[in-house]
């Protein structure tokens, strides 16, 4: 692809260099900084590999093993346990659904309290927000382990884990939704003689409710993913089967389970995207 532009540019190279010295000879400062950054990042990575005792032997033999496993994965098969798997999948969905709902119900008062325009006290606001952040900082899997040892193995622990992990996120999102609500409808309700309760019911709720509902739907969707793995630590659902089949090296069943999970997640994604679209009437960016 050599256009005429290239020829004329090359012919006039000397002139171009004279007229635009900064492009041909950029100041060395930023370039040195970039190179230093790259060298630093790569150096740190190499140190980390040394510290964590990576060895080519292990990587090589592991890859060979992995290739062998992959061969065993085709064709995926359920090995006669399809009804077990489907039951576990239903349990997973139930955990995700109930856990998210529980979190939403519990987070509603927390979200109201954490909203700047409801509780004006700055110290209280700071305190509530930080505790919500703390809850959010703990991974679902950690919560699952904790609840398994608190209430015993099974889906109940899983539900509580999902609820605990989402409580922080919902509290934050709800409070933001309330903070972003428009003041005018509230003033309108108050001006036409409504009480404080009326203001909340007719002024705030209609604005905030669809946003919250769509966030809850989004979290049900993302919790379907989380709920598939909490079984690994014994908190119910399909993860239990997955961990077991991996430990007993039944690779065709592992492949089947993974495919099952992927299809379920895709279906739930599709349904919830549709529902969210219907509720809000426009695409909402998924909360990060």
């Amino acid at each position, binding site marked *: *692809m*050599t*256009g005429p*532009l*290239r020829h004329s*540019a090359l012919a006039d190279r000397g002139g171009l260099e004279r007229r635009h010295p900064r492009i041909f000879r950029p100041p060395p400062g930023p370039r040195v900084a970039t190179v230093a950054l790259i060298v630093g*990042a790569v150096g*740190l*990575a190499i140190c*980390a*590999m040394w*510290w*964590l*005792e*990576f060895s080519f032997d*292990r*990587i090589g033999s*592991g*890859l060979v*093993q*992995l290739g062998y*496993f992959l061969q065993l994965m085709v064709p995926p098969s359920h090995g006669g346990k399809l009804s077990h798997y489907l*039951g576990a999948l*239903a*349990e997973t*969905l*139930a*955990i995700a*659904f*109930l856990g998210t*709902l529980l979190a939403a119900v519990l987070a509603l008062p927390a979200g109201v309290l954490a909203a700047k325009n409801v509780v004006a006290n700055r110290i209280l606001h700071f305190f509530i927000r930080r505790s919500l*952040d703390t809850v959010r*900082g*703990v*991974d679902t*899997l*950690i919560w699952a*382990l*904790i609840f398994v*040892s*608190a*209430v*015993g193995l099974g*889906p*109940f622990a899983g*539900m509580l884990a999902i609820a605990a992990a989402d409580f922080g996120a919902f509290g934050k999102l709800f409070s933001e939704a309330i903070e972003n609500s428009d003041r005018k409808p509230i003033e309108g309700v108050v001006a036409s003689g409504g009480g404080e309760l009326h203001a909340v019911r007719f002024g705030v709720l209609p604005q905030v409710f669809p946003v919250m509902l769509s966030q809850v739907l989004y979290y049900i969707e993302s919790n379907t*993913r*989380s709920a*598939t*793995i909490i079984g*690994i*630590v014994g908190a*119910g659902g399909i993860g239990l089967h*997955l*961990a077991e089949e*991996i430990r007993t*090296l039944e690779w065709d069943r*592992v492949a089947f389970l*993974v495919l099952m*999970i992927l299809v379920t997640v895709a279906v739930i994604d599709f349904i919830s995207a549709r529902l969210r679209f219907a509720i809000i009437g426009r695409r909402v960016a998924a909360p990060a």
Partner: protein
Amino acid sequence: MMRAYAQAVSARRARVMLGAAILLVLIAMSARTSEVDLAVFFARIGSVGDYFDRLLRLDNGQRVWTDLGEWFWGLGRWSRLLFDTLLIAYLGTFLGAIGGFCLCFVAAENLTKSRGLRFAARRFLEACRTVPEIVFALIFVVAFGLGALPGVLAIMIHTVGAMGKLFAEVVENIDMNPVEGATAAGASWTQTVRFAALPQVLPNFASYALLRFEINVRGAAVMGFVGAGGIGQDLVESIRKFHYADVSAILLIIIATVMVIDLLTERLRHRLIGAAR
């Protein structure tokens, strides 16, 4: 007009009632499948409170904060494990970012004209990010043996998928004029990427990589649950062996680390994005 209003309101009421009814049915069905009913719920919810109370007591029954030395007795060991965790997160992010970086230009609509190639790249990225990383870790632990290596690889694969997609979206939103200029001047595909696309996207890429690092620190903290290295190993052991004070100590350390990392990366990201504008 009143009639029309009443009709509109009753139609909406009916819809809300229908929604509520569906919700109730779904709740009942889920409660059945997951064997949770209200009686069980209230019978067992008390033990949660008990458990959290015990988390904050030392072995001798005292509150944990009465003897910090006893509470954080394993600080040396835990900080080493935490350091491992951070390195696992870093390596996973670093390698994953490189992978995502290489693939994102192939997956971007405006730079790769071949449909087949683009489709393959996109499906690959999707597969990498939809399978949860802990599942990868479980499989890799069997293949590579216990240790940090499977953890790094699991995080790396997930990062490739997540970052490849985000990067590709950034690339698709670039200003196409420099690309056209480079193509017109006879640049090859790699030259076009290097001189026309890269300068536009680099600050965004760096910012996403930092955000991913933040997420991966959380991910790396649980890798130890399945034997893939880091602080998770000790956490899972102390939870299983009912060493309550250790559990709360390790949890606090993890939370504090995650918060510090969040703050640091947020600062850095604001500076990066600020520098780009």
